[in-house]
């Protein structure tokens, strides 16, 4: 009984903690505005209504994950890994929920359902983990080379913007740019996951991409950590 009583209070506490942060409310407003902007852009595109909904859904799936990722500028990446992951999950659930409700409100007929969003959240969690691994590897590389991480994280955000297919599906990119993009882990974080809205066929290759990139990044991280430990002990 005590546990049942504590669950609502825990939810209320989490919601209160989340909404008391003006930055997070800013992210919600940004998400709503971007959905409004793309809703009108999508409606004006020469596409069928189904394709227009898919376009908006693709953008929405990209943005809710992008805005949930820990940010370097806001100091979220400087906290522990567990805390970063907790922040991502909390933001992802709330922003994802808001995205779904907004899309339900904007579209009278919704092609994707709660089950699609549940799957999308599952993949979003994998995206979050991959992004966390990538930023951790970047941070360790910066420490190894004695460079300031700001510029690296700026490049990382630009990589997400361009190669993540933020507002245009990667399949519509020129073929050379698609090839370049798929040589980076950014499509696995954003575009490939959101493209599942067009077809679920890519889900198995997406899982392979997650594991492949995670293994590679873990390998690099391990090597850098080893090197740094050796350097420290040699001094």
């Amino acid at each position, binding site marked *: 009984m005590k546990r049942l009583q504590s669950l609502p209070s825990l939810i209320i506490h989490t919601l209160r903690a989340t909404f008391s942060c003006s930055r997070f409310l*800013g992210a919600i407003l940004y998400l709503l505005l971007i959905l409004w*902007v793309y809703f009108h852009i999508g409606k*004006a595109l020469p596409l069928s209504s189904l394709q227009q909904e898919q376009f908006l859904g693709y953008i929405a799936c990209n943005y809710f994950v992008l805005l949930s990722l820990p940010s370097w500028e806001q100091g979220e990446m400087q906290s522990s890994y567990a805390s970063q992951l907790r922040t991502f999950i909390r933001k992802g659930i709330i922003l994802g929920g808001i995205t779904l409700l907004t899309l339900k409100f904007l579209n009278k007929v919704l092609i994707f359902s709660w089950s699609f969003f549940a799957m999308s959240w599952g993949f979003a969690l994998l995206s979050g983990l991959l992004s966390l691994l990538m930023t951790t590897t970047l941070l360790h590389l910066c420490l190894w080379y004695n460079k300031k991480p700001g510029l690296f994280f*700026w490049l990382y955000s630009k990589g997400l913007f361009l190669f993540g297919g933020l507002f245009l599906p990667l399949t519509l990119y020129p073929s050379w740019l698609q090839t370049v993009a798929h040589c980076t882990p950014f499509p696995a974080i954003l575009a490939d996951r959101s493209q599942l809205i067009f077809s679920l066929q890519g889900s198995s290759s997406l899982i392979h991409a997650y594991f492949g990139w995670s293994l590679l990044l873990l390998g690099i991280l391990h090597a850098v950590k080893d090197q740094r430990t050796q350097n420290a002990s040699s001094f």
Partner: protein
Amino acid sequence: MQVVFNNLLFLFLWKLFFTVFPFFGGWTWQDMRLLIACGTGSLGLMFVFFGGVKKMPDFIRLCQTSRPALTSKAPLFTLLCGSSIPSGWGHLATSLFCFMLGDLSLIPLAFVYMTLACFLLTATHTLLYSLLFWCRAGSWIAIYEELFLLLSLYPIPHKNMCLLLLFPAGCVGTLPVTLLRTFSWSPFFIFLTSTSLFCFLAFIVFFFGCKKYQAQTLH
């Protein structure tokens, strides 16, 4: 350099978008190019000539803590023109590049609109920061700035412009593009009225904010 790279990346992505969808909601690639040119140009002019606007929160904090005597007869003008932000040159370079991709003959007329938009941007920022005289809303102002930029630099279909004009982000990007394509007096009048109104409001709000602290200092 980061600003130029950022803007060019944005331009490149929209180029990709317009390669796939050459026309939508009254927008073409030429319009988008003009939108980015006008948006970045106005922002660049503000950063270069009224860079002090970003120092307003510090000035207001100083007023609240040490209550300095305002020696200048026009403190707002002194504050706004007192410093320049180097990234503004990056925005201006992007703007020039966007014009160079198309019709260079548009530059003189575009410069007039960008100057008006620059006054409007400065006034909006001044108005927002002046609110700090009365309330602590620093983080909200940063959020508003972000949303303002988003609405200024995205191609919203023309029939949905009402919100943009109220915000008034539409006056920074969409309205100058409309005027550059076909000039007509009614949008120009809206543009001029909006700019004058916001400049007047910004001046009044800042004046009363300073007055508040000067009165407290006398007491």
